[in-house]
């Protein structure tokens, strides 16, 4: 019984290139108001294009609006309903954030505007740094990193630079087998060799394993807390102590901070560096893949190594003036041009000011409550992957359903027919057949109940009609795609051929 969704007529649409017709235009530019010098007098013709941009479309504004409106309706969205991707924190993206980020004074501001003419921007950056420092309990914040992975890389570089300053850069990054793929990848960019440490039976860091692994070569332990299994690292203090005692540092992947904000602070646990995913915990939109922002917060000791520029306060005859400080001799350098994903930062500050300390705590508590509610209601239907107290997300697996030939992927796809976006699947790797469910605080009980009902119903279907589940989804405009073919013979761009132009028109 599918309660949450129906099927409804939905527009087909080819590629924008297939809409192209000679002579169509979608713009109107102002007339040239200076002399119409022939271009090839201004510049040597051999430096000019020789292809007349024939590959770009010629379409009207109406074509463009129809095209993108139509294809948009093929997406699921947070504004449609629960989007329970574990580790992704698909919470509601407040509309006020969107409005504020578009204010002309922000949106039209050039990054090289002289500091005294950009005090609003600098003030905003400083306010956000202060707020994130308070939230993490780590005193110094860099807002530069463009996403979580860049935050990781930046944080590791800061650690490395500090260790170098101490006289010993070291070689190794210890990373639990449950970590997100960006952790080892970022360590690699940073020049560290990755050593994987096996998690304990309940997915936590195995203290004995850790002790054995830690030595004078270890620069950093990268951990995620709550772990990617959604559970708090109970021994976090001891873990930090072990690493610190051996002269290493602890990096915390803050992707799961939605479980902790306002309740406990990484700085108080002994962590040296954390990155935050503003596009998770702080409600900035995921945008179908970005942009996000991955600020890092670090200890006092690490501050000098943060990327430049830094916003600093100066005193101009008693008037507080902010400026960007580029003169940071110990800094790791620059990790991107200009000042970070500013438009994302605006949204995050807007969120923090909207919620305030009580709201932030309420969000955390509700996120954890919602996940536990799902765990509680589904534990008799699906196996829960790990023992222990889940926080903001819970991991089920397909063990019980496998005997009917139904796997995690099938369950995920069938959820689509039920009107939901699937949960995160097959991550973390240490949880075979993982179905990682993170409802966030943005779901009300009735949506949680619909999800629980859907999951139960699918479990019944798995038993009684496994084919139905294995061939899902059935209610979408296209079915499961042949991903192997996509990788075997990659078609990564459109080319004008007769074949192409009739495709995807539903023919």
């Amino acid at each position: 019984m599918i309660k949450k969704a129906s099927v409804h007529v939905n527009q087909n649409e080819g590629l924008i290139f297939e809409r192209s017709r000679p002579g169509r235009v979608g713009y109107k530019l102002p007339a040239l108001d200076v002399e119409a010098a022939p271009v090839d007098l201004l510049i040597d013709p051999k430096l000019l294009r020789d292809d007349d941009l024939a590959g770009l479309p010629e379409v009207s504004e109406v074509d463009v609006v129809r095209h993108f409106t139509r294809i948009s309706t093929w997406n699921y969205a947070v504004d449609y309903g629960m989007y329970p991707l574990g580790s992704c924190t698909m919470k509601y993206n407040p509309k006020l954030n969107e409005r504020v980020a578009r204010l002309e004074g922000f949106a039209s501001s050039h990054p090289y505007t002289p500091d005294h003419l950009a005090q609003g921007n600098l003030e905003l950056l400083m306010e956000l740094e202060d707020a994130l420092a308070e939230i993490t309990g780590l005193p110094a914040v860099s807002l530069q990193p463009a996403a979580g992975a860049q935050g990781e890389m930046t944080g590791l570089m800061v650690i490395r630079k500090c260790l170098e300053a101490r006289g010993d850069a070291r070689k190794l990054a210890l990373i639990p087998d449950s970590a997100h793929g960006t952790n080892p990848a970022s360590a690699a960019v940073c020049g560290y060799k990755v050593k994987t440490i096996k998690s304990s039976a309940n997915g936590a860091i195995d203290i004995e394993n850790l002790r054995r692994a830690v030595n004078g070569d270890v620069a950093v332990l990268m951990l995620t807390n709550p772990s990617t299994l959604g559970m708090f690292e109970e021994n976090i203090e001891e873990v930090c102590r072990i690493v610190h005692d051996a002269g290493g540092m602890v990096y915390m992947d803050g992707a799961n901070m939605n479980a902790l904000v306002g309740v406990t602070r990484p700085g108080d646990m002994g962590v040296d560096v954390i990155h935050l995913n503003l596009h998770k915990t702080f409600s900035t939109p995921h945008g179908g893949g970005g942009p996000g922002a991955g600020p890092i917060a670090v200890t006092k000791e690490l501050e000098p190594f943060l990327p430049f520029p830094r916003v600093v306060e100066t005193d101009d005859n008693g008037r507080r003036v902010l400026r960007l400080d580029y003169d940071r001799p110990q800094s790791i350098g620059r990790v991107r041009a200009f000042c970070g994903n500013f438009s994302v930062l605006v949204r995050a500050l807007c969120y923090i000011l909207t919620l305030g300390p009580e709201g932030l705590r309420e969000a955390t508590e509700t996120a954890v409550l919602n996940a536990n509610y799902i765990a509680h209601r589904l534990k008799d239907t699906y196996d829960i992957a790990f023992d222990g107290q889940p926080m903001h997300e819970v991991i089920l697996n397909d063990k019980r359903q496998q005997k009917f030939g139904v796997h995690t992927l099938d369950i995920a796809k069938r959820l689509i027919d039920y009107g939901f976006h699937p949960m995160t699947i097959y991550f973390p790797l240490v949880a075979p057949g993982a179905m990682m469910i993170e409802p966030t605080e943005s779901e009300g009980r009735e949506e949680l109940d619909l999800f629980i009902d859907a999951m139960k119903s699918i479990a019944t279907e798995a038993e009684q009609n496994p084919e139905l589940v294995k061939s899902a989804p059935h209610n979408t405009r296209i079915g499961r795609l042949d991903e192997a073919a996509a990788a075997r013979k990659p078609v990564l761009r459109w080319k004008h051929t007769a074949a192409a132009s009739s495709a995807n028109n539903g023919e």
Partner: protein
Amino acid sequence: MRYIPNSAEEREAMLLEMGRKSVADLFCGIPDRLKLNRLLDLPLALSETETLNFFRDLAERNATRHTGERMVSFLGAGAYDHFIPTVIDTLISRSEFYTSYTPYQPEISQGTLQAIFEFQTMICELTGMEVSNASLYDGSTATAEAVLMADRVTNRPKVALAGNLHPEYRQVVDTYIRNAGIDEITLPFDEKTGALKLDALNSLDSDVAAVVIQSPNFFGGVEDLRAISEAAHRIGALFAVVVTEGLSLGLLQAPGHAEADIVCGEAQSFGIPMSFGGSYCGFFATTEKLMRQIPGRLVGRTSDAEGRAGYTLTLATREQHIRREKATSNICTNQGLYALMATIYLSIMGRSGLREVAELNMRKAHYAAKRIAAVGDYRLRFDAPFFNEFVVSCPKPSEVILSRLADKKIIGGLPLSRFFPEMKNEILMCVTETTTKAEIDSLVEALK
């Protein structure tokens, strides 16, 4: 809290059903001594109006054409003030686009996937390359990724970077490769033209993984791609071209047509607001041969069991979530929505619009340059052909000139002394289609 549906009452009822006494129970995994036990020291929640006013006030403290001191600006240098068609914001504001995740579930993500496929195609068309990824953070990190990729592909220890590459891009490359064991060679530029010295290129050894250049270069000059390409390929290095001003591709040779191996850069000029430097959208294109070494996500076309065409993320074995430390990059979240903005921009402008706007830029910039060079002791610092940026040598230190202009509500450009201490009288100026003749003329007046 209006963003949290479940009221206190409902939360109580849920706890009851779960047999839990209080929500604190659920946090039992956290040792008590780590609990904060106080509210965060942050301002109390603001009302919607107060929040809006707070940001309005901040925004009004920035000088733009319509806010703060209401100034006309001639800043460019990697961030450009271009006309942005209204429909872009309308369309990306559809929540189907901005409130969705990375399209890992293609059956309910075809909107995002198809748009990325279109983006990839357009980037290929513009750059003259065969394969484009789905975006990177920005132009500077795209450049760093190009260097890392060249290193992977060639296994050579050095990289040659143009001395007239955007200095911030260079700084980012420095940071990214610092721990990768790659040595950097800086290619000098000609004092007269501002363009790269071709003879310096000819003296490079075959231990160079890539020759990385920017065109138009940081001074606005258009480089001779074909000549540099030949020099690079002669030593078996990859030829990587960085483009910070995407609109220049409306007129200038596609780097791919000069046999570039990698073309990367910044798509901000394609309908993305300047927003104090971000979010922007890095692009990255290469050849089919090097496809499997490309960093970041790729979308490919395929079909379902009934033969209906569809799009999906593909070649994921390059990526961190599969390959972990052996991935071609650590990037995960990229700039999806901003790639969509660029896609919409390029659709709206299309074949004729892109050329028209590029011509407007070039003609207005040349008009401005000519007029400025005719003023007293001002002259153009370099004589290479240029697109919409040029360097002006002033009779006085640039700060003096710029602060005089500021008094007349003009932000005159970027003082080059910031990056090139020897250029203390030099200002990098940019003129786009949004600059009117009247504004150029008033700049000229103000310079006098």
